[in-house]
């Protein structure tokens, strides 16, 4: 473990924790602009998290310890994921502990825990949310894995830093398989992050909720951690997308501190553009009925399988 590696690892985790709420604030701002509303402050998510930490936690009478420990575990899993996704540099000592498959496993761990916590209270909305979340997840998770597999077939490795090294290092070439994978990944990210057209993060209509229905009973610090973890999840997915499809600017290999510091503005710029695109997609599409979600995700899954097939057929 080099000193630079250790430094880039810590810096990356810190930047992920700090920037994640900002990304959410940015997306919300873009959404407001695009729909001709006056935008909330960019810092609103931070203020919200701070306010929630101050409040007294209200926990349902029949809640078991599963309910109370879940926010911490979800937050921990997302931090773990943030440490292995190469957003600034690929020289990450921790990344060898978990590869792309383990990354999907970490997301699944968070999903299962949050679904169990939703069922713990025993309200109608909680179980409804848990059921829908698992329903979305069972198609989204394989699709995400297939996207990552396509990238790992190109680079011959499932380790995320190695994938980014390979894709960024080669001379500029268009991989047809990555085009399919990119579309599939965008669709999966929308579903996994509870975005329109599968879910609506700003909904107040209980019957259409997925993610929000699961966390209805959370308050105060528990809710703050869940919100922060959701922001981290969006950040992680954005970084995976950027790392797989636009790996330019990431400090590649055993690099010096300057390159790592130079990667930070590039990351912010890419995230800003990515966030705007997300807001654009959300504004331009309508929410699907829950039973149309399998078609949407099935398409993503088939596209990802197709990407793998194309990769094997064309060898690129």
């Amino acid at each position: 473990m080099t000193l630079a590696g250790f430094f880039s690892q810590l810096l990356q985790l810190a930047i992920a924790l700090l920037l994640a709420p900002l990304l959410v604030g940015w997306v919300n701002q873009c959404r407001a602009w695009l729909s001709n509303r006056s935008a909330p402050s960019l810092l609103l998510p931070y203020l919200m998290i701070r306010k929630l930490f101050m409040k007294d936690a209200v926990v349902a009478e029949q809640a078991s310890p599963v309910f109370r420990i879940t926010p911490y575990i979800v937050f921990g899993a997302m931090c773990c994921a943030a440490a292995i996704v190469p957003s600034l540099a690929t020289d990450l000592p921790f990344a060898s502990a978990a590869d792309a498959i383990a990354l999907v496993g970490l997301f699944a761990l968070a999903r299962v825990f949050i679904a169990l916590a939703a069922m713990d209270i025993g309200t109608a909305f909680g179980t409804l949310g848990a059921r829908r979340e698992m329903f979305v997840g069972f198609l989204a998770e394989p699709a995400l894995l297939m996207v990552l597999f396509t990238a790992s077939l190109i680079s011959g490795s499932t380790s995320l830093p190695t994938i980014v090294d390979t894709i960024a290092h080669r001379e500029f070439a268009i991989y047809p398989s990555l085009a399919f994978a990119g579309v599939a990944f965008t669709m999966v990210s929308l579903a996994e992050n509870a975005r329109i057209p599968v879910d609506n993060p700003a909904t107040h209509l209980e019957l259409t909720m997925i993610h929000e229905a699961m966390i209805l009973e959370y308050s105060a610090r528990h809710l703050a951690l869940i919100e922060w973890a959701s922001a981290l999840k969006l950040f992680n997915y954005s970084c995976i997308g950027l790392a797989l499809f636009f790996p330019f600017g990431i400090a590649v290999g055993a690099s010096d501190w300057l390159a790592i510091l130079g990667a930070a503005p590039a990351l912010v710029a890419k995230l800003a553009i990515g966030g705007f695109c997300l807001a654009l997609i959300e504004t331009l599409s309508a929410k699907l009925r829950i039973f149309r979600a399998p078609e949407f995700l099935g398409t993503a899954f088939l596209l990802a399988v197709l990407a793998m097939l194309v990769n094997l057929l064309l060898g690129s």
Partner: protein
Amino acid sequence: MGPNLLGLVIAAIAAWLAIGALGLVRPRNLAFVSHGLFPAGAAVGLALALVAYFAIGRLPQSTVLPLGLPDLPFHLRLDSLSAFFLLLLGAASTAISFYAAGYFRSEEGAAPGLLCFEYHVFLAAMALVLIADDAYVFMVSWEAMALSSYFLVTTDHRIPEIRHAGFLYLLIAHVGAIAILLCFGVLQGGNGDYTFGSMRSLVLTGGWPSVAFFLALFGFGAKAGLLPMHIWLPEAHPAAPSPVSALMSGVMLKTAIYGLLRVTFDLLNGQLWWWGVVALVLGLATALFGVIFACVQSDMKRLLAYSSIENIGIIVAGIGLTILFKSYGKTLLAAITLTAVLYHALNHAFFKSLLFLATGSVLHATRERSLGKLGGLIHRMPWVAWTALVGTLAIAGLPPLNGFVSEWLLLQAFLFTPSLPQSFVNMLVPLATGALVLAVALSAYVMVKFYGVVFLGRPREPHLAYAKDAGWYERVAFVWLVAGCVVLGIFPVNVIRMLDPVNAMLVGSTAMHGGGGSWLLLAPIDAGRSSYSPLIVLVVIVAVVLLTIQVVHRYYHGRVRRAPPWDCGFPLQTPRMQDTAEGFGQPIREVFAPVLRIERHLPSPFDTAPRYAVKLDDHFWHWLYLPVANGAEFLARLIGRIQQGRISIYLTYSFVTLLALLFFVR
């Protein structure tokens, strides 16, 4: 040569038989059986596991026992493959026997001593299957295993459904046994020597190796629950008492996997690539089928039984991939795949036994098996609930527990497949990978449903408030199995080192020799290609959790107020408003409707006493089993016509037969 480990294994088998026989001495004395005999059986299991652990990687030991028929003595042999499965048997049965000590009650079904006898004969027969070295011992112990487990399944034989389930189990076990017998017949190649040693040295020619392989796949598949012979599994597992379900699902299915591995990689010389394709496709179909059916079950033991079908499917798919790699001479990849297979078999023995035992405790505490009448048990039964949570997470394939390790290895193996020369196989891989990850993701759905409905939420029936937690024997068993799940999940490198002699024996390579990993880092090929370290992942998650709790409580506060649930301000809430098992499985039922056979009964709008009913059934039952059963019945009726019940007619038959024989034989 070292110590006589085979002798110790035989001694353990004899000890089990003796314990079983002691049970017959005082069959009605519950205290003697449960506090004396079952713990003794558990101790023997532990000893067997230890012996087997030391036997892995040693030179094979063999012996001939002067038992059985004249000229047909028992050939026994202990090699690494046998030792690994004996370890699995010993480790799982330790917990299950201990659990059984606290489980059986005197008023239920057969006498406890009789159960103890059948149970230990079952254990001994499974161990004997694993060390058999000729077809004769193998078939004798295989049949002993089938019969003893049949009697265990039909413990509550006064209930017609249980008798029916037992009959189905016995029938399919014997259809499978016939195929295995024929397989050995093919393998001995006409020289009349049924020892495995002679089968090993024999090279079959022409299509005979394929015939032998498919007979083995069919025969052992019937025992393992492979499509389309899976039909007995969801009937027999719920019918049996829970320790027996655990033993059947956790261990007995693995003896079938053992048999398949033994025949394919040890007794047959050389494998053909298309066997691998068939096994792969069949395994994946079984996995998907099992998991989809598990999603829509509303009986907790049936749900687990279908989940067993899924896991067996994954294991067989792994065996198919191993055959593919082996037939193309890629021994290192074959070793990695085989490691995944063995690892998953071991994992499944632990977490599925754990969950079946947990359902047993729930069943005893609540008398309910239907998911729709459970709920909220985490408050009343914390020991069962928290240990079952570990099993649930493990079986859902989540890091850092054991289920994830074997799935990780198997997915790695799939990613290596493009290096195969056959382009047709390469095209198959993305589809196969997709099917596998779909099955794995669905198993998380199943497990959230299982755990959430049984242990979380609010009790759906008032009497659940009086449920009692499991007793001490049961708790020890749970803790042992949880420890197994955690250790297998956290220290994969050590486990794979232990498995490597088996790989070396079956596919001629070890999985760990090329790796750049250390004890901490699992890296099958090299660290740049793929690596995984569950211990680091666990430490980081736990560290973040503890740190967050500390920081939040220090800089803010840890105040908690208890209040009624908010539920969007809806005040009238009853436990009936929670999702039932049917409700939770409903989306899957809609998406996979063509796979299921759904019979709905919807009342008309004018019905004054409306009843809604949905019945889910298996297409195989209607498309395959019922036609075969009807055909058999038709034939039997035809043949029955010659049975007239009058002696003179029978004498005429004999006379005609004699004449015909004289005519033809002369």
